[in-house]
């Protein structure tokens, strides 16, 4: 105590001492709370954060679905499993871009190689928007445990690795979601209750059919195109059958979106099946199948998933002899309706 008192009497040293104490307190709080959040984050057993961790670290599914909300709420793994007799997991997460999808694929490929990968693609996915980078935030909790994500996380900002010196920062704004993911009640909540990653939307859209007459002119983000190509290459290198789907919308498009055009060209060049369901007459007439103009509701997702499976089967039949097929064709053919 005498030493502390002596320091207190010396003004400049006192200031330095107090500043140091403040920094130590700050460091200890950040370290302690950050590590607790890390423990709590990876201990979750429900919710959207848990689903991402499960997709990266645990799933062994034969079919893996990638994409944003259009993947997460529209592809029902249960139907895939029943018809194709292969396990399926939906890794889709709302609001994310190809950076996220590619990172998840990398995480999965470190452990095993799925047989089929489905990637959903949307209009304007190659548009240059800051949001695509901001939402790389979803990967921050995995920065330490998954070094393969680091180049993608660095895209977010040149300062990201310095921000990550804070142990709390990766869990910014997640405290309540993590708490909920650890809570028993969360498993029974409608929105959270998932089927192998798929989260159904229950609402029914009551609005009018939308019309998109924009000429689709916008600045392209070449990073997203680069990672889209990297995604297709990773699948090709690992001998994964990749399918790309552009799902239905309750919008009639007058012009083809430039992102879709580019993605189609890349797919064609690499012999990847690309299926487009926009302006699909069936879905344009069925407002009752939508939760909102961009997303199908649960009944819509059920019908759409069947159509997706039909396309996959059709493709398998056309492209491979039955004996070489990735899918157990004899099984699914027998149950196919």
């Amino acid at each position: 105590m005498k030493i502390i008192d002596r320091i207190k009497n010396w003004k400049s040293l006192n200031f330095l001492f107090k500043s140091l104490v403040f920094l130590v307190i700050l460091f200890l709080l950040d370290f302690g709370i950050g590590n607790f959040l890390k423990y709590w984050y990876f201990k979750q057993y429900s919710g959207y954060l848990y689903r991402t961790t499960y997709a990266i670290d645990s799933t062994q599914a034969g079919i893996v679905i990638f994409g944003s909300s259009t993947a997460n709420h529209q592809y029902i793994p249960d139907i895939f499993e029943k018809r194709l007799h292969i396990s399926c997991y939906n890794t889709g997460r709302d609001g994310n871009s190809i950076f996220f999808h590619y990172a998840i694929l990398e995480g999965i490929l470190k452990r095993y190689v799925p047989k089929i990968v489905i990637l959903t693609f949307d209009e304007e996915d190659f548009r240059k928007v800051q949001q695509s980078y901001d939402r790389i935030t979803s990967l921050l909790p995995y920065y330490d445990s998954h070094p393969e994500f680091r180049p993608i996380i660095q895209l977010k900002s040149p300062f990201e690795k310095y921000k990550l010196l804070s142990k709390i920062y990766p869990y910014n704004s997640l405290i309540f979601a993590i708490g909920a993911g650890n809570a028993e009640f969360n498993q029974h909540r409608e929105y959270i209750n998932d089927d192998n990653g798929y989260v159904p939307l229950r609402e029914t859209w009551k609005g009018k059919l939308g019309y998109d007459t924009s000429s689709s002119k916008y600045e392209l983000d070449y990073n997203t195109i680069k990672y889209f190509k990297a995604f297709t290459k990773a699948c090709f290198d690992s001998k994964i059958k990749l399918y790309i789907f552009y799902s239905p919308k309750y919008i009639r498009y007058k012009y083809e979106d430039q992102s879709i055009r580019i993605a189609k060209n890349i797919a064609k060049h690499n012999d990847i099946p690309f299926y487009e369901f926009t302006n699909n007459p069936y879905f344009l007439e069925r407002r009752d199948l939508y939760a909102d103009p961009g997303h199908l509701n649960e009944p819509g997702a059920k019908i759409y998933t069947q159509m997706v499976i039909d396309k996959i089967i059709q493709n398998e039949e056309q492209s491979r002899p039955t004996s070489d097929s990735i899918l157990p064709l004899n099984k699914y053919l027998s149950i196919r309706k």
Partner: protein
Amino acid sequence: MLFNSIIYFIFLACSLIIYYVLTVKYRNYFLILASAFFYMYVKIEYIFIIIFIILSNYLIGIKIERAQTKNKRKQFLYLSLFINLGILIFFKYWNFLIENLLGLFRLFHTNNSIPLIEIALPLGLSYYIFQTIGYIYDIYRGSQKSEKNIFRFSLFTLFFPKLLVGPIERAGRLLPQLAKNIYFDKENIIEGGRRIAWGLFKKLVVADRISIYQTVVINNLHEQSGITILFASLIYTFQVYADFSGYTDIAIGTARLFGFNLMENFKRPFTAKNLSDFWRRWHISLSSWVNDYIYNPISYTRRDWGNWGIYYALLISFVVIGIWHGATWNFVLFGLLQALALIYEVATRKGRRKISKKIPSLIYNNLSVLLTYLYMSFSLIIFRTDTFSQAFDILDGIFSRPGKLFFDKPSSLLFMLIGCGIMLIYDIQQEYKIFRISLFTNKSWLVQQLSYAFLLIYILLAGVFDGGQFIYFAF
């Protein structure tokens, strides 16, 4: 360079180190360079506008002081107003004036074409133009001596902490500070740092969090229920307060780090009991500027009109405050709404005093605070929209659409409410000293340190650092 960006804090840290490493006599020169760099970081060209304003007003200020006759002084005052307001009108109000003029011509079936200009408003223009006009007017009326040192006058205009969002400083406050030698003082560093921490809390935890919700509600207005639109409108007042006062706190804190005291811009406005009280607490540097340079001169010249002179001065003053915020009729209406409420308050002052004596003060005061807040929230519906029809859509939505309150996840609501709660409790404690124990001003330095450390930790936990946080409405 946004005050809440990493780039700004790197710039600030570097500037601070160089500032205190330099010998005292070079520090202000360095601040001029740093401020010019700060301003040019967004767009280099705009530095020429500010240089022109500095040079012309520097010379006019000296000319006014040296002018022998009142007439001559007046001529220089008008010249300064012509230059300053001319630049402001050209950049900020030209298109608004032309569009309205053309609309007027169309009423009389005459077709005229006057070109509109596609030019971005130079950042902070309204702030530094008003500050400069105040300086010139003070010299004109003899309450301020002109600044002879061009470098000091340049720093007065350019000083980067207050350049973009104020406070609109007064020459009598800032110029004497710029004339002093500033030495390193740990109190400045501590207080400046604390103020910046609070500013970051308000901006990142409260304002930007509410902004995510606002964006979803306003972008999908026609699908929202009345209760959702009402809730969004009520918390918008908190958003504006947290955003603007947060920025101001960072500005004041930054200036303090360099050893300067900028004027306060907000003084717990949510504790105001009436609108006059509110405007004494809200954007003080602007309202006091308008009070000194518009309201007082008008009410003085119209003193023979009695109360009508006050009403007239209020009307003009608040229309100026309204249009200062931007070139739309909604801002004019916003100003008019404020003026009308203040006229009502002046006209009913005696009656209200009588009523207040009949009602227990606790009820009367709280009701007054609530009504003031509600009126301000209502006015801000006009303020936030570009057209009257958009404002009407919001009002119509509040009263005509049944439904539940929208929030995507309980956590979105919790983050907003906790942030607003902490901010309100802090303000109420500052105003009324309800709690005996104060964490941030505790006598024990360790408790203070811990409190600020927890504040920073909470910013890390709950702040919005980028577009990583979002709300999906469509589901």
